[in-house]
């Protein structure tokens, strides 16, 4: 086998024209370390977000999870900001990590063309698992970005979910195999020294026989310059998107978020998810003839006036979308538990809620009876606008926005557990 002979350059086969003086195990390991922290956070927040839909109740997207759903648990309703923080973190951190992933892939590109293609069965299998790692991470990023920007949403939930498992299988193996190398490379140079070294003092890392170019070109950027470039790109992505989850003054900076604009400063001028017009809701369907139907031990039909006459509660609660954007508002409405009692239901059990636009979701018993769960009639002291779900919408603390149905029509409390 053609191996490196003492003193001579290692045999790199036909693809050996790598010239970049910047590539090296230290730089790769810095990117690797960032991803080693970031990717597990992405995986866990993703799993929690899936659990928040509680697919076991049978109404969420991608209910068919198989063994990958073994971890599922009863989704919580407290603290009320939990889903908002989890999903905001998942989407924002995912976007911020994209430049780091690209940098990491750039830094290990010579390995793709390594020669000979494999040295042993073990090495071959290892490279095969990298298809899962590289294909998986790019697939997860692309499906996520297409989804939050409303382009190509077919199979998002199943693709992103199963893709994440396949990716993590490869990721765990990759980390196990490379962890010692990463630690050794990180210890080979001091970050503080690197941050003080400008272009004039930059020399390529000592040859490692794979990442460092055999005959590097003169450096055109320092290692701290590359870190600043990648970090700066991540920072730009953060500033230009995070505001749609964090809200406040930062929202208007989220120039590449989908929900950074508002139509004014009135009580109903906060971001909308699906306008009434887009789902065919007309003022006629929500006028004086509108009734909310409750089905339990008995059937009750209530007008908006009758609902307003019930003992109402007010709470500051977020609506938080799977797409990562969120907004907290002050809602006033009838507790779902109160409506259950009106329908003759005394014990905690799930309920199927349905809306005029034929959307329908099953809420768990915990969610129906949670403090703060309500059929909201007013927001920030004013009646709900048609776009925000007039005459009435459901608000459940810490639930995905997709569970906060607008233009409610019916609640059925008799769903089996």
């Amino acid at each position, binding site marked *: 086998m053609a191996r490196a002979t003492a003193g001579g350059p290692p045999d790199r086969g036909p693809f050996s024209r790598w010239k970049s003086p910047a590539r090296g195990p230290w730089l790769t390991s810095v990117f690797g370390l960032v991803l080693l922290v970031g990717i597990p956070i992405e995986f866990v927040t993703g799993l929690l977000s899936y659990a928040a839909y509680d697919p076991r109740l049978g109404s969420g997207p991608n209910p068919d999870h198989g063994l990958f759903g073994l971890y599922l648990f009863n989704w919580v309703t407290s603290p009320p900001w939990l889903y908002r923080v989890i999903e905001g973190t998942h989407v924002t951190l995912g976007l911020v990590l994209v430049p780091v992933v690209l940098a990491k892939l750039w830094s290990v590109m010579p390995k793709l063309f390594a020669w000979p293609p494999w*040295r042993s*069965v073990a090495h071959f299998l290892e490279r095969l698992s990298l298809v899962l790692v590289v294909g998986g991470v790019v697939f997860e990023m692309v499906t996520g970005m297409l989804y939050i920007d*409303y382009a190509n949403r077919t*199979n998002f939930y199943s*693709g992103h979910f199963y893709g994440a498992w396949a990716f993590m299988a490869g990721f765990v193996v990759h980390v196990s195999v490379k962890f010692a190398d990463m630690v050794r490379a990180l210890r080979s140079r001091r970050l503080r020294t690197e941050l003080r070294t400008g272009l004039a003092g930059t020399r390529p890392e000592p040859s490692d026989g794979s990442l460092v170019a055999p005959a590097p070109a003169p450096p055109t950027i320092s290692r701290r310059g590359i870190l600043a470039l990648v970090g700066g790109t991540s920072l730009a992505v953060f500033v230009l998107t995070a505001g749609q989850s964090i809200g406040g003054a930062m929202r208007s900076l989220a120039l590449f978020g989908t929900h950074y604009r508002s139509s004014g400063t009135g009580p109903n001028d906060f971001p909308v998810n699906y306008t009434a017009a887009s789902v065919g809701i007309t003022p006629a369907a929500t006028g004086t003839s509108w009734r909310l139907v409750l089905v339990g031990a008995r059937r009750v039909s209530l007008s908006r006036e009758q609902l307003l006459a019930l003992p109402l509660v007010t709470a500051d609660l977020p609506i938080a979308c799977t797409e990562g954007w969120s907004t907290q508002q002050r809602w006033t409405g009838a507790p779902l538990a109160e409506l259950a009692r009106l329908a003759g239901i005394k014990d905690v059990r799930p309920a199927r809620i349905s809306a005029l636009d034929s959307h329908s979701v099953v809420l768990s018993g915990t969610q129906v009876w949670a403090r703060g769960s309500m059929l909201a009639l007013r927001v920030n002291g004013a009646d709900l606008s048609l776009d925000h779900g007039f005459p009435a919408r459901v608000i459940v603390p810490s639930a995905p926005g997709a569970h906060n149905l607008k233009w409610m029509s019916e609640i059925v409390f008799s769903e089996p557990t």
Partner: protein
Amino acid sequence: MKALRRYYGAGPAHLVGLLACFAVAAYAVTRVLGEGAWVSVFQWFVACLVFHDFVAWPAYTAADRLLLRAQQRRAGRHQNRSLPEVPAPARAPWVNHVRFPAVISAVLLGMFFPLISRLSRAVYLGTTGFSENVYLTNWLMVTGALFAGSALAYLVRLGLARRRHRREAAPGAATHARR
């Protein structure tokens, strides 16, 4: 154990770990096969790999090479004209002042392509109630600001380098003369 090392090339933990990894991936594949449009999931997976390794990476590598060549050509011209009043440090390399805004702008374009190209304008309008047209303007504004900021930083660097050079070259600079 020795036979495993010889014929496989690594220890038993390595083999078990990789087999477990492929088992999980294979199970994920069987779950996706149960989906209606599973073909599109695999198409996306392969498309992502191929696009990154054989389109995006060669493209940005080539762009960077062109940029470097342009800088070298300019540097060479300076040398030929041999301007004594503009020494090497005063001709601070400008290539990174192009790379920074160009990379950030290109990554933003790639990441938010569906918004910028109005790929999803119908859904976007129905979902948010706003027009998707604004993102191209946003991207151009951000790109303009990045290049302007980078150009400003370059001018400041150039000014500082020239001033340092003038001070060092001045006849009154006794400390330098003595050295």
